[in-house]
């Protein structure tokens, strides 16, 4: 098995684990930011509405790689300017952190729009019923709006996840050793770039296929949860 692909298969698979780690951690950031952005746009005061609206519009209008470079190189300068004031030593920004923060930040904007649409799709009657039972605003959100919106948000959420997984390929550009980066090393060493890039392409399709199964499971679970239909 190790002799497959000139012994480079373990390196590629190691990169694949990193790809999945970057994707899952960015997803985590994106969901938190998305919930914040959606809540701010729906329930916030005028200022938080403007901030959240600008965030979702501006981020979706700029290519991900430009944002990633800005956060990776810019963050480096920013951190060290702050560090100078406090007398810290030179700090190197970790490409893993820069990559996950950027991707989380970008997809937070997309998630925000997905969640906003899903919350607006929850029927008014359910929410009013909650208030009629004397629930507080937070209780209504946690026990009624949130569980009901998940079902509406699932298709958009899944679509965002698929795009997010593909976007992780960009972290190889800022030097993170994901499977794209390792495919370059293996392909250049063995002079078989085609073989290794195609292999990585197939591994991306594999992640998509596994996600598909996970999504079907989630859909069944949330449709079963007795939401009426």
């Amino acid at each position, binding site marked *: 098995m190790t002799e497959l692909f000139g012994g480079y298969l373990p390196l590629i698979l190691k990169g694949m684990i990193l790809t999945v780690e970057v994707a899952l951690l960015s997803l985590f950031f994106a969901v938190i930011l998305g919930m914040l952005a959606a809540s701010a746009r729906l329930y916030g005061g005028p200022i938080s509405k403007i901030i959240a609206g600008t965030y979702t519009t*501006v981020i*979706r*209008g*700029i*290519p*991900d*790689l*430009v*944002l990633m*470079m*800005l956060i*990776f*190189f*810019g963050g*480096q*300068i920013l951190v060290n300017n702050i560090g100078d004031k406090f007398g810290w030593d030179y700090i190197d920004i970790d490409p893993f952190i820069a990559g996950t923060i950027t991707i989380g930040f970008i997809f937070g904007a997309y998630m925000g729009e997905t969640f906003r649409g899903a919350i607006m799709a929850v029927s008014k009657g359910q929410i009013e019923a909650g208030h009629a039972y004397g629930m507080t605003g937070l209780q209504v959100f946690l026990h009624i709006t949130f569980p009901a919106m998940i079902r509406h948000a699932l298709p958009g959420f899944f679509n965002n996840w698929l795009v997010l997984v*593909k*976007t992780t*390929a*960009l972290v*190889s*550009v800022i030097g993170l050793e994901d499977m*794209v980066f390792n*495919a*370059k090393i293996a*392909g250049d060493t063995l*002079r*078989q*770039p*085609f*073989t290794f*890039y*195609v292999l*990585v*392409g197939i591994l*991306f*399709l594999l992640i*998509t296929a596994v996600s598909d199964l996970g999504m079907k499971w989630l859909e069944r679970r949330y449709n079963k949860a007795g939401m009426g239909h």
Partner: protein
Amino acid sequence: MDFSIIFDNLPLLFKGLGLTLQLLAISLVIGFVLAIPLAIMAASKNAWIRIPVKVFVYIFRGTPLLIQMFIIYYGLAQFDWLRESVLWIVFKEAYWCAIIAFALNTAAYTTEIFRGAIEQTPKGEIEAAQACGMSRWDQYRHIILPSALRRSIPMYGNEVIFMLHATVLAGVITLVDLFGAAKIINSRYYAPFESFISAGIFYLALTFMIVFIFKLAEGHFLKHLKR
């Protein structure tokens, strides 16, 4: 922050902008032209016609565009027979490899958009065409395609924006597009904020322009669907 370096390098940025627009326009045109027959094939009832197109769409939508571009630009060099053939004139150039990758990618996404629209053509329109004695070809030319393409405009607008943002990948394989120009300015002056924020503003402005153009197109072509 010192934005004077941006003003000094405006010619470079505008040259990059030119290449970005050129890459975008050429790949969109090729992708659009490919997508129409592919969408008709994808909507076919014959599995032998439908399945190859579905596989093409699945592969190009399921893998990162960066990988597709790397396979074409770096990967194909692995094959000696290709390097010795006439085709190498095209495949050795980053410019053509970027265009091929972008065009095939947008062709796959656009095929999916058009296929959806073709399949959602109201039954009555097709029945009316059949009642008029139109051949299958005439139905597509005069009824199905004009109606499906109109209904695709909002989705296609998103695809154009997606492609604009995807052209930055050209800057990864040594081309000096808008992103490539920003990268050069950053490495020359070590000024990430100035260079990437400026490039970001350019891309944002282009995105708004595309949104605006498609809003106009929707108003013009989809008037009959407005309620």
